[in-house]
């Protein structure tokens, strides 16, 4: 009951934040609010027993998205043009839809109902079979990378596509090419002592944490995607401290491209290997004598692929935005 009430409180906050985002005319504050929105959302997910999702939402919604929006706002005016009249028709349609959905909710199973169809079909099978077939503690990781590994392959390609798109749109044209970035002009925060020292101290830990998330994903919440996002957060922090150019020299753009494409290829080649060794695409069981070991190998390699691609793409995107002026 207490949990439920906390949930209600958090959700109400969520709605208020959402309204504040929509109403705010200053885009900077809107970006900050949407970071808060994501954190609240992550908290909610945590309450709802979805640790992996909470971690991801925090890393992506509050972290990556905020940084991206800020990088974008560097290039565009941060003020919204003053208000325009509401359109009565759209308001009516939207309100009606919302009421309809609320009306429909009375036919739905309530929160946490153990008899809901979702808890009866398929999901129990995952929970029951994971120890036997895959033998890793984190069921979410098992489903993500093995039972529904094909979706995850698709997810990696979505990320890669976004990377391709940003590089295609911002990588050419009027912006400066990567190689000619002037490290003199962009000193970042290096003039400020305290952030510099703090960051220096933090960065190694962040990177270490990322590696932990990457390789411990089978046992605890986490995996390639979250690891990539956190790794990127570390690099971005570094670049804030040391200026763009130096951060870039740590990982050259061509290497980023190789990472992005290589990660996706790595994932795919695990699948093809399964095919060559007599199984179906993405069938890890055939990778080793013992099917369970095969699953382990498959999961570790594809998670690595996911991590590589996510890191490569996110860094490319960040640099593409940063290199534009």
């Amino acid at each position, binding site marked *: 009951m207490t949990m439920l009430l906390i949930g209600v409180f958090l959700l109400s906050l969520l709605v208020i934040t959402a309204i504040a985002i929509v109403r705010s005319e200053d885009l900077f504050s809107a970006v900050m609010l949407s970071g808060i929105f994501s954190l609240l959302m992550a908290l909610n997910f945590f309450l709802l027993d979805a640790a992996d999702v909470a971690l991801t939402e925090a890393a992506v919604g509050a972290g990556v998205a905020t940084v991206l929006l800020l990088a974008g706002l560097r290039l565009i005016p941060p003020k919204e043009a003053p208000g325009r009249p509401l359109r009565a028709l759209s308001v009516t349609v939207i309100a009606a839809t919302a009421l*309809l959905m609320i*009306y*429909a909710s*009375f*036919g*739905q*199973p309530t929160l946490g109902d153990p008899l*809901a*169809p*979702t*808890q*009866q*079909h*398929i*999901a129990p*099978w*995952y929970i029951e*079979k994971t120890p036997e077939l895959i033998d890793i503690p984190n069921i979410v990781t098992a489903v993500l990378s*093995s*039972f*529904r*590994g*094909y*979706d995850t*392959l*698709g*997810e990696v*390609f*979505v990320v*890669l*596509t*976004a990377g*391709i*798109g940003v*590089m*295609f*749109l911002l*990588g*050419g044209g009027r912006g400066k090419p990567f190689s000619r970035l002037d490290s003199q002009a962009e000193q970042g925060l290096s003039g400020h002592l305290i952030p510099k020292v703090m960051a220096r101290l933090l960065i190694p830990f962040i990177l270490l944490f990322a590696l932990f998330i990457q390789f411990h994903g089978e046992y605890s919440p986490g995996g390639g995607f979250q690891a990539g996002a956190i790794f990127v957060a570390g690099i971005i922090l570094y670049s804030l401290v040391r200026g763009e150019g130096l951060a870039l020299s740590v990982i050259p753009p061509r290497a980023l*491209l*190789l990472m*992005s*494409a*290589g990660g*996706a*290829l790595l994932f*795919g080649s695990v*699948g*093809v290997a*399964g*095919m060559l060794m*007599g*199984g*179906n*695409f*993405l*069938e*890890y*069981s*055939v990778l080793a004598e013992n099917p369970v070991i095969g699953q382990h190998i498959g999961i570790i390699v594809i998670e690595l692929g996911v991590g590589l691609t996510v890191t490569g793409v996110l860094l490319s995107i960040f640099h593409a935005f940063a290199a534009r002026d």
Partner: protein
Amino acid sequence: MNLADHLPALQVIVPLMTAPLVILLRNGFLAWLGALLASLASFGLAILLTVAVLGAGVPEYAMGGWQPPFGISLNVDGLSALMLLLVTGASTLGLAGGRLSLRRDIDNRRAPMFYGAWLIALAGLCGIAVAGDAFNVFVFMEISSLATYILIAAGRDRRALSAVFKYLIIGTIGATFYLIGVGFIYMMTGTLNFADMALRLGDVIETRPIIIAAGFITIGLALKAAVFPLHIWLPRAYTYAPNAVTVFIAACSTKVAIYVLLRFNYGVFHGNLLAHSDLFTVFIIPLALSGILLASAIAIYQGNIKKMLAFSSVAQIGYIALAAGLATHAGLMAAQLHMFNHALAKGTLFLCVLAFVLTTGSASFSNLAGIGRRMPWTMAAFVIAGLSLVGVPGTAGFVSKWYLIVAVMGMPGWGVPLVMAIILSSLLAVVYLWRFVELAYYGQPPDGDVSRMEVPLPLRTLIWSAALANIYFGLVPQLPLALAESGTTTLLGGLLP
């Protein structure tokens, strides 16, 4: 397992896995070549799958070796094969015919990214066509959509950017609506697999969430499919995209959304929700009808050939939606045939437009006056494909229109007015096409120059092969017919007469 059993997976993997390799290339030509080869290979795979479907059938493919509904399955039936042929064929046509045009639109340095996106779009569309899992469809829908946004944004006109942003917003809303619908169904059935869904839906049928789900899915996919009046993103996106891209997406991307709509409405809901077909019919037919008539009428007033053809696409989507909305055997046949035939005609038309723009540099009517005398071969192909679009007998377009009209006549009470609407819109199609044809043959070129300036022979050959395919499938439509027949059987599952 032998290789033949892997065909459904290979259909997706081949273009998907080639894409990261292509973006690593540094040379525009090599990237194009790589993309073309991968696209040709997928076309070959689609043909193999088609042969298999028409033969013994294609067995279900369990991804990762996990049997559905626990794992993700790939299912290929006649309708999927039809879509695969369309998608891979259109992609190959666009790439093969678009070399010269793309070389102009996209600078060499960014070309590998562009071709990578092209292959990802292709893989995404193929992925939707073979998917047997509702969430997997969402993932691949997003893959193809994101990649398509990139392709459209590559247009040289700055309006390509504003068009693509609108498309991105509406496309995402559509996909999210779809996801919500899937969520509601999952909530009530606990499964994501199409076949399993259809099986388990019977128990919870007529509950509020399922009805809401049907609404969300239908509206979301109608947004993606640009069913009138949810089409606002389409004309500008088609117009300002690079010409080769228009050849590709105009022929197949909206049809894939309709494909998913068919899968859901018939494969999943229909057998369970008895009233569903009536609801669907009542919802979709008025929209389809107004699309058929209004979009055709709007097309008449366009001054840009690409925009005119784009509005024509909206009208043609109306035909498909109308046929699909009839919820009869004949209607589904007509819908599938029209998808195939319209893709054939539109692909050819846009390929001709590509050739026009290649030589004259613009797609506006004023600039294309007299083009028929300057490029007689291309223009003749345009006329043939245009006739197919109108539905003149002897062309592919007639076959599907015939089926459509026969299907419509079978509707008690609706028959005659619907037939009249279809015929009226065919006449409107004659008007808008003939406006251009007349201008092309008898108009005065802007600079008064009427010397010959045809595109190179390989491109002309390609254009003519596409045009002749319109005639071939008008006289020998057995292949699409067989596929549509097989598709209809699986869609209805023997539920309807």
